[in-house]
């Protein structure tokens, strides 16, 4: 346990083998007669692990059985696990991705506990669940431990688990600050709070009472605490006790104060507003103008010399406008795969029944190559045209640009739609990467390694849940847009950076003009 950002999830990732530690090592000692320790990891937001297929197929992947085997063994193997979590009514053909988020989470835990490894690692198993579901999950984990497993869980809502746990590890600011049984944890909770460890309500109450002269703090069920409170004063221990932390802290205690609602904004924030605004690099009008002119000029290129000039001019513009290297490389890779495919297709002469014999025509491939090179320029220019605008800047600019040409309603829809695209493309990328992470975890739990061939076959199991998540995300966005009625509001331009034509702008435009001149000359 520990605060958000203290390192719990990172530690679990390392223990599960999904993240390699930069120092030190994680060692598992297999029991006698086995070569390795199998770990089952259920990360945060476990509903990401689902493949958006039928329940039988989900279990088939986790249990490493075929679908028909799973259906045959549904009653003995699968249903008890589902019933323990209140999902006994699910049929093999049901779609777990149609359930509510809480029930999806419970479903993933049912899958994980159907054939778990020797070690179970859970990150926030109880988050987002109601009280009954939380009790069910804790009971299932306790049952798993009773049957001989080792369960390591990261938890916020400690009161659920503190009474069932055997050991508590508290992490504060990336360090281990407590390691001991739950009783000792509650007894030293006052000390630990000063070190930034969140303490559960049971311990908070016990400590508040202890400070007021009540019984010594410890881990008590409600009955026990009530009994101690009701005991006559004479038989109680005297005075507020001094609790000894089991872990020595070398730091001075940092007081985490109350929520910053009462704090006034600091003087540093009240500085001149313009200092905080982005220093924009290039006036957008000039930028768009030069890029568009360049793109049109490149369209006229058909020969090798022209191609060379086009590539050089585009590269010069990329450097001048400080395009991010990662995006440039990514677009280059995309273009290269397309180019190779196009050239191969154009140069290849298939054998019978299409033609007389196999052949490869280099001439045709070369011609295609010269046609395809300008597309690299277009991709990079496209990146330059849209890059480094925030969503609101794009909306405001679009609104201003279309003001005289387009009626109000369509103009506002176009502007806000542009804003949404700009805002959510990076978010979509994050979701996509998260989906691959979830897929890796799923494979590892089933005891398989991630390989390219398997990934290619299974790509639907990544794409389908990703699309569903995006659609759900988009539903909320649509709701918010409608409720806020943004399509009737002009994008505020008050916070657009004060773009001014500067020397750099002129230099970049001049470079573009030189490039265009060269292109025309090579024609």
């Amino acid at each position, binding site marked *: 346990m520990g605060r958000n950002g203290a390192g719990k999830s990172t530690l679990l990732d390392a223990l599960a083998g999904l993240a390699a530690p930069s120092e030190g090592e994680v060692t598992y000692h297999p029991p006698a007669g086995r070569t390795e320790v199998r770990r089952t990891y259920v990360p945060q937001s476990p509903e990401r692990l689902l493949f958006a297929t039928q329940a039988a197929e989900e279990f088939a992947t986790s249990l490493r059985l075929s679908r028909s085997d799973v259906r045959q063994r549904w009653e003995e193997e699968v249903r008890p696990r589902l019933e323990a979590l209140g999902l006994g009514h699910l049929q093999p053909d049901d779609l777990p991705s149609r359930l509510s988020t809480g029930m999806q989470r419970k479903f993933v835990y049912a899958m994980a506990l159907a054939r778990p490894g020797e070690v179970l690692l859970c990150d926030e198993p109880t988050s987002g669940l109601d*009280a009954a579901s939380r009790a069910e999950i804790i009971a299932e984990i306790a049952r798993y431990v009773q049957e001989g497993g080792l369960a390591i869980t990261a938890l916020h809502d400690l009161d659920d688990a503190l009474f069932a746990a055997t050991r508590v590890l508290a992490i504060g600011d990336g360090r281990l600050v407590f390691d001991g049984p739950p009783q000792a944890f509650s007894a030293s909770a006052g000390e630990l709070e000063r070190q930034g460890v969140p303490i559960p309500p049971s311990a908070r109450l016990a400590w*508040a009472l202890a400070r007021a002269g009540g019984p010594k703090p410890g881990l008590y069920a409600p009955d026990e605490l009530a009994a101690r409170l*009701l005991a006559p*004063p004479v038989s109680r221990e005297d005075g507020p006790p001094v609790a000894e932390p089991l872990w020595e802290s070398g730091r001075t205690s940092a007081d985490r104060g109350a*929520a910053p609602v009462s704090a006034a904004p600091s003087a540093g924030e009240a500085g001149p507003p313009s200092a905080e605004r982005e220093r924009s690099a290039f006036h957008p009008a000039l930028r768009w103008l030069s890029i568009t002119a360049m793109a049109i000029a490149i369209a006229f290129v058909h020969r090798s010399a022209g191609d060379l000039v086009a590539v050089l001019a585009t590269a010069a513009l990329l450097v001048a406008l400080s395009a991010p290297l990662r995006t440039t490389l990514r677009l280059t890779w995309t273009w290269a795969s397309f180019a190779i495919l196009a050239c191969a297709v154009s140069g290849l002469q298939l054998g019978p029944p299409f033609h007389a014999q196999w052949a490869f025509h280099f001439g045709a491939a070369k011609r295609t190559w010269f046609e395809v090179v300008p597309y690299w320029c277009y991709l990079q220019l496209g990146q330059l045209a849209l890059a480094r605008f*925030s969503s609101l800047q794009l909306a405001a600019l679009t609104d201003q640009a279309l003001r005289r040409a387009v009626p109000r309603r369509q103009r506002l829809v176009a502007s806000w739609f542009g804003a949404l695209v*700009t805002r959510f493309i990076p978010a979509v990328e994050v979701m996509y990467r998260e989906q691959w992470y979830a897929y890796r975890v799923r494979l590892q739990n089933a005891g398989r390694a991630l390989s390219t061939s398997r990934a290619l076959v299974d790509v639907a199991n990544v794409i389908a849940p990703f699309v569903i998540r995006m659609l759900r995300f988009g539903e909320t966005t649509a709701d918010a847009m409608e409720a*806020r009625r943004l399509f009737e509001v002009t994008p*505020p331009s008050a916070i657009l950076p004060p773009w001014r034509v500067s020397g750099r702008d002129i230099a970049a435009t001049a470079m573009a003009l030189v490039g265009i001149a060269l292109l025309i000359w090579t024609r």
Partner: protein
Amino acid sequence: MPQNTQSNVTQLRSESNAKPPALAWKDLRVAPPGASRPVLRDVSGEIGHGQWVTFVGPNGAGKTTFFRALVGLAPFQGEIWVHGEPWQTARWRVQMAFQPPAASFVGQTVLEELAISIAARAAHVGEAAPDGPSLDAEVRRWMHLVGLSTALQRPVDQLSGGEMAKLAVAGALASGADVLLLDETQAELDPDARAAMREVLRGLARAGRTVLLVTHDMDDVLASDAVVVVKDGHMSAPMSPRAFFYADGGLPPCDHLGFAPPYLVQVARRVQRALAIEFSPLSEQEFVEGWQRVAASQILDARAQRGNSSIESFV
């Protein structure tokens, strides 16, 4: 069966009766899209100023549907008034903070998101949008109100869960909310962020706004001013958390719904039962003070003298 609860709300603070209630609804009937039968049937009720009301109930009972109707996302039959004005004209005063907050942010940075909300309010109210330094000042004011202390240029995707929730609330307030709706926004937050949000909501209620929160977390109910139980399409009258968690006889509504009361409530109930006194604290502070009074009043010594000193007979 229609539930007519045109009750005067538990006014826990003295308010002048001349002010119309912040939110009033009469014979409201709402069906979510695609549903054949309305989820809420002929409900009526009202909520006064400066109240933080939590809505609890089983899933599918109609809480989300009610909120969606209030914010204009679900068609409804019946009447709704916001601060005495009909909903159609005053609907901009009811704003919702959506879940997940990241999906509802259109601006790329904190400053942009709040500027958009401010511009939206200005457009709907018919004023000119603020500009330059006054915009800055207003944005800082909203951030200070919710306790958001991050840089203005911070991208919204880099905020923590708690910060995103605060920004969503700030955006709703900047959009002109007098009535703030939060549908299960506490569910994905860690306990620190939840506690911070509770402070924010109390502050808003104290300042005169009305906050409606759908939650499953009993700690939120403990901290609120009133709680409404929504079940099978019916909404109860707002009751105080004390009435929700503690009952004179029989089952408290909390247990009746199948919720687990918070730890301090469980302990307090046992003490209350054993001593047969009024002991219904809603916070640790109240618990400690109440228990100190019990200790000082020598009830416990009297019991010991009467011979009830063994622990077993209490619990």
